[in-house]
């Protein structure tokens, strides 16, 4: 069953009287438990899709169905709820709150979720059980990103939405982080959407959505995605 459905979704900006379509009638569907990659160069419109899917922006037209519910008509409060309950967000720059320890950053999930998972346990799962009282400033980029993943998953969301999750990491660390996302999501049955311009990452996806100039140029499904360890970039 498709957990994410984009149906003729457009996002049009008004740029000095000229209409600029950042997303033009985009339609796709991602199934429950799938690992999907939205791929495209910068300016292709993938950030727009990310923003819309993440409940951070409003579509100009079309429908976005998440778990069967149309979120396009949500108001600010409803969108905040949607972000809290449905989306686990992993940022390119980790975005940990610098004044909170690793554990406390993960505990943020408990503040807003109905069914959060245990923060300490999530930290154990990303392999940082012994760093839980450290502040972000005391951790490497890879470690920070793992805390960020733990934080996203602690919310027990339907969808894990990752924005260039390896963008600020070296390739070795990036691979570890991607493997972590892939493995945990598979264990927990989460749908993963990774937005990236980094083509090799697409090789590990079940579904790859290629974007160009605000439109989908190709959607490709793979029965046997490559293991992360084999990917090189």
């Amino acid at each position, binding site marked *: 069953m498709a957990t994410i459905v984009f149906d003729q979704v457009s996002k049009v900006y008004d740029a000095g009287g000229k209409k600029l379509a950042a997303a033009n009638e985009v339609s796709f569907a991602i199934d429950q438990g799938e690992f999907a990659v939205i791929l495209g160069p910068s300016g292709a419109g993938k950030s727009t899709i990310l*923003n819309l899917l993440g409940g951070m922006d409003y579509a100009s037209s079309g429908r976005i169905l998440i778990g069967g519910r149309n979120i396009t008509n949500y108001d600010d409060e409803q969108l905040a709820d949607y972000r809290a309950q449905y989306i686990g967000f992993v940022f390119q720059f980790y975005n940990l709150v610098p004044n909170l320890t690793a554990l406390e950053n993960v505990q943020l999930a408990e503040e807003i979720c109905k069914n959060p998972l245990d923060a300490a346990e999530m930290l154990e799962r990303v392999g940082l059980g012994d760093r839980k009282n450290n*502040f972000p400033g005391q951790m490497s980029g890879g470690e920070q990103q793992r805390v960020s993943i733990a934080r996203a998953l602690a919310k027990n969301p339907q969808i894990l939405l990752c924005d260039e999750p390896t963008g600020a990491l070296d390739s070795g660390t990036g691979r570890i982080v991607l493997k972590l996302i892939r493995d945990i999501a598979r264990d927990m049955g989460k749908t993963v959407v990774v937005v990236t311009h980094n083509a090799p990452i697409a090789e590990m996806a079940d579904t790859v959505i290629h974007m160009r100039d605000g439109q989908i140029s190709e959607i490709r499904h793979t029965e046997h995605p490559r293991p992360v360890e084999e990917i090189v970039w």
Partner: protein
Amino acid sequence: MVKGALIKKSIEDMKKNRSQFLSIFIMAALAIGMSVGLDTIWTTIDAHSQSFYQDTNISDFWVAASNPSDLNLWRVRNLKGVQKAEKRFTVNNATARIDGKPILRVYAVPSENTLDMSMIMSGKKLSKHGAILDRSFAQANHLSVGDPLTIEVNDKRIDTTIEALALSSENIYAVKDTASMMPDPKGYGFIVIDEDRIASAYGGRKPYNQIEVRLAKGADAAEIQSRMDSIFGKKLNFVMAQTDNRGVNFANAKVIQFRSFATVFPFMFFLVTALITFSTMMRLTEDQRNQIGILKALGYSKKSILWHYTSYGVFVGMAGILVGILFGPNVIGRLLLSKIKNLMTFPVEDMVINISKFLFGASIIMTFTAGISFLSCLKLQNEVPAELLRTKMPKKGRHIFLEHFPYVWNRMKFSQKLTARNAMRNKFRIVVSILGVSGCAGLIIGALALFDLVSGIPKTLYEKTYSYDQKVILDSDTTDRAIRNLNLDGIVQDMEESSVQLTTQEGLRKVTAVSVFSKESPLIHLKDAEGNSVTLPDTGIAMTRKLAELMNVEVGDTVNLKRSSDTYYPVTIMKVVYMPSAQGIYMTDGYWQEIGENFHPTALLVQWNKKDNDFLNSGYITSYTDRTTQKSDFEGNLSAIFGTSLLLIVSGTVLAFVVLYNMGMLNFAERVRDLATLEVLGFHQKEIRPLVLTENIVSTVIGIFLGIPIGKYLAGTIAGGFGDDFDLISRVTPDRILIAAAITLTFAAIVNHIVRKKIKSIDMLQALKSVE
């Protein structure tokens, strides 16, 4: 080209941070405006009065003596240290025979006199038959040069022609008696005539009753004054120093008061200018470390980069100084001076700006704005461009002290923990907020206290101390018996008011007001500083607290009182009473007679059952004033100080707003990325808000509490800076603190509202971007 690009960058940066730079500008302008504006008041009065004294050759002291002989005068002239001594005659109770029967002070002057000259504003020099008339009096009564004027002195008519209109340095503050507080140019003025003209009123013999004395530079005034006893003997009434002249005293008091205001109040604005500049420039340069790196990498010299950042402070500081110097004297100065101008008469009206104080203030502002800008940039100058261009690691979080108390810490909400950690990480910002708020609350408390002090004087005097309806000044011929025979319907209290000279054991001498009335005193209720009633002692005197302090005496001490008959009489201070204004001594009519004086009532206090208009219009009296008029006159007299207190309240609230706004915005700006992240994570507005607003509220509350002692300190300093005539007790009452707190909290709420809107407008997508 290179320079042009940097200037463009400056302008863009300032636009981007306009509220911060506007704040620095406002604070700098207020600091300069307040200090120069308040200074203008006293420098103007000081300069005008000093030059007026000099131009009119004012005496250093006056000796009141009955019919001094030429020998007396000769002996005064020959004292070592006396430069000049002249005689004249003066009475304060002549009537002008025009509508309203106004009272004139008459000076009958030998034509060769050079001391205490009037300053002629129009007309010619005084002839044998003419008169020089008070210009304000002439204007109020529509008299001009050439008009005839008849005055009545000692019940005799003297016909004169007005030859000149003039001002007098002895009458800068022209009030006719101790009951009056407001100059009334229509009802009172001065007139100068030749000594020959007065003779007719006194049986053809030229009368004299005053010796004017001018001292040589460096002469010992006290020593010379003490010699008057032996020279004049029985004839001596009293010696009045220049500073005892009501006008001189009044001008001096205003100088002292406004000098004290100008010193105390602007301090906070200078401090806040420094703090705001510091917080703004620290953040600006911190935000721009990348840009500084780029500029360096592009090859800009260290000097030009330093100047670029220093120039922010220079420009803003200069703009503030410029507006301050224009606004201070022209708005604050003019506004307050206009209120004082109604009270004092000077020949010139231009303002005198205290240039040295302005330059001092301006250099402090420039040091703060330019210096702090320079230093904040200098800090980054020592890093290499590559380091500056590298993304800065997020500030390290740190465990805070509170976490050692798990009982407390574990019970705190998440947002509280985060707020506590943020606060500890940004101690400086918190300190600035608290300082700014406490300064504002303190300033408002101080201003309210000043308001209370000033409005409290007439309240204490005319509501608590006096309970008469009218104070009637009796004609000098009216006897005690005549009054008793009138059987006035009401409570009546007679009193004698005059001046006596007191000398302490230490040799300190002072001419002071003496009030003599019955022990029962139904209409004057003396009190001590705590507000307890004080009755006059049967023997000995009661002295006002401030006078006792000035003369360095206390209860039980004996001072020598100069009697009108002959020499001194030792009187013991039995009680100390509290009078907020008008210091002096009190004694019973019985004791007054015991020391050898006649009790001759000069004033009658009346609380009517039925007002007796016949009496009030009778020949028994020369004038009367309602207590309510006295009270409103007193309030009018202090209107410049009321104005100052309002000005301070307004500027205190501006201070509060600017500080809170800046710190609120700074707090917001520093956290915007965290807030955006939390919003992406699904936090609701109401959950995000407290993270920023709590800090503002807490620092506001702490600031208000710290403002209380600041306010009390300000109030105490102000109370002490009113001059010798005033004895003010500063009281900061809880309701004043509440008002100050309410004003401050209102502004905090407005600022929080603005920040709340800002939080609402956070663009979540900012969270996705890289750290700048």
